[in-house]
């Protein structure tokens, strides 16, 4: 059974008297353990799609099921990570990581144990007692990712998590994410602007049009796993990159 199935999901917003369509009916699927990316021009409605999948909004039409369950109460069934790390400045790193367990009312001792274990496993144990203000941008994103994973390791919705990082930090965060994904056997739906990032990380890529968004194309990335940055220089990857960029350039408004 696929982790996520969207069939004919659409959404419009009311702006004054006008009805502004944001998502045209679209289909999308994420398999168990699959890494799927969504690329599209900015403002095309990707974040609206995420809000719908996370259960913060309901679609106007179409059906949506997570692990075969189509109930509209979906909050808590995904690990949703917004663009900003949004760590709580009054909590230490380990206390931030266990935020989701606080929401689930897991006893504090047990939650701390699990948070520490996770931090240790992914190389952040030294920072467990630090406050977020003392961390670098890349570190904050890693902590936010672990917070997401500790809340729900089955299905991660990542909204441009590395968009604000410099190129080198971004690359090391990407590798770290791939490792994390393989260790916890998560399904990932990943929003990005960056074609190379999508190719490096994904099994499949959905390319979305400008608003109102529809799916322009779905491509499979046939690069071997585990991935590393060199593979972006392979002819298959280069060809795919050029193809996707030319497709997206047409959609990008001036």
């Amino acid at each position, binding site marked *: 059974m696929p982790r996520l199935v969207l069939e004919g999901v659409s959404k419009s917003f009311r702006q004054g008297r006008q009805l502004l369509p944001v998502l045209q009916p679209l289909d999308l699927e994420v398999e168990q353990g699959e890494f799927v990316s969504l690329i599209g021009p900015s403002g095309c409605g990707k974040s609206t799609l995420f809000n719908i999948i996370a259960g913060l909004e309901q679609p106007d039409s179409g059906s949506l099921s997570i692990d075969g369950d189509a109930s509209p109460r979906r909050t808590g069934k995904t690990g949703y990570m917004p*663009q900003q790390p949004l760590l709580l400045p009054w909590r230490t790193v380990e206390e931030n990581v266990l935020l989701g367990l606080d929401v689930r009312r897991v006893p504090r001792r047990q939650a701390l144990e699990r948070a520490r274990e996770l931090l240790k496993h992914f190389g952040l144990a030294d920072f467990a007692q630090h406050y977020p203000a003392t961390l670098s941008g890349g570190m904050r994103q890693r902590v936010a990712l672990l917070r997401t994973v500790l809340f729900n390791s089955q299905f991660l919705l990542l909204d441009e998590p590395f968009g604000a990082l410099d190129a080198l930090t971004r690359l090391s965060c990407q590798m770290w994410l791939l490792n994390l994904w393989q260790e916890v056997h998560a399904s990932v739906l990943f929003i990005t602007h960056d074609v190379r990032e999508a190719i490096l990380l994904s099994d499949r890529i959905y390319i979305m049009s400008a608003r109102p968004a529809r799916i322009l194309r779905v491509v499979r990335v046939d690069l071997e796993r585990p991935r590393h940055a060199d593979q972006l220089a392979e002819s298959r990857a280069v060809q795919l990159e050029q193809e996707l960029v030319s497709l997206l350039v047409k959609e990008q408004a001036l």
Partner: protein
Amino acid sequence: MKLRWFASYGPAFVLAVALLALWELAVRADLSLAQFLPSPSMIVQALSLNWGAIYENTIPTLLETVLGMFVATALGLLLAMLLDLSSWSRRAIYPLLIISQTIPIVALAPLLLIWGGIGIGPKIVVVTLYCFFPIAVATADGLESAEPDLLKLLKSMGASRWQILWLVRLPGSLPSFYSGLRIAATYSVTGAIVGEFVGAYQGLGIYMETSTNSHAIPVVFATIVVTAILSLALFALVNLLERLTLPWYHASRVQAGERLAYSGRFLR
């Protein structure tokens, strides 16, 4: 650390000393002035001569101030939560709050004396009236300022309204709460003095009043000095409390300050 302390308070210290010296010289140059305006040295003398009486009158004033601050904090927090309950309650309560601040409390004090007697109760009410407003408004603003994306994140986790309040919005509003409390601390002693002015058994306010009536002007000034020191001490106490309860906030501010200083040396 000492250097930094001097860098931040040094200029104020130098200016204050210069003004006091100027004042002292002016009074000494024209001694007929001393009848109306005692020099700093005369004020210090009056303070040491009347220390026993001033000390005795400081205790009840301090008690009224602290009790009033406690009541004001409780009331301020309660009002902040009520303001925050819904947009409807905000629209209902906020205008009334502002109107309550347009009432001259000085005019209210004698009425409180009539209603509540000459004891400590009415003074606590006056302090509360002076202090609850900044606490309520600052805390309500703090509650409202929570990052919308953060609320979205918590909702996506399936958190309830109360969980969001308890886990995110209340702790996030604490720095604002302390800003309000700091302002309240500077008002509070004045509130107690106003309350005592219209009638009290004991207290700095009534002591000031009787000193004025007997033309003991240096004693009045000495009492004003004590009042100011009391206010400053309360202010410092609030700062200390903030540092102890919000270590993360202080740490992040120091860091931000260092980053600023690093990126622009001219700021120093």
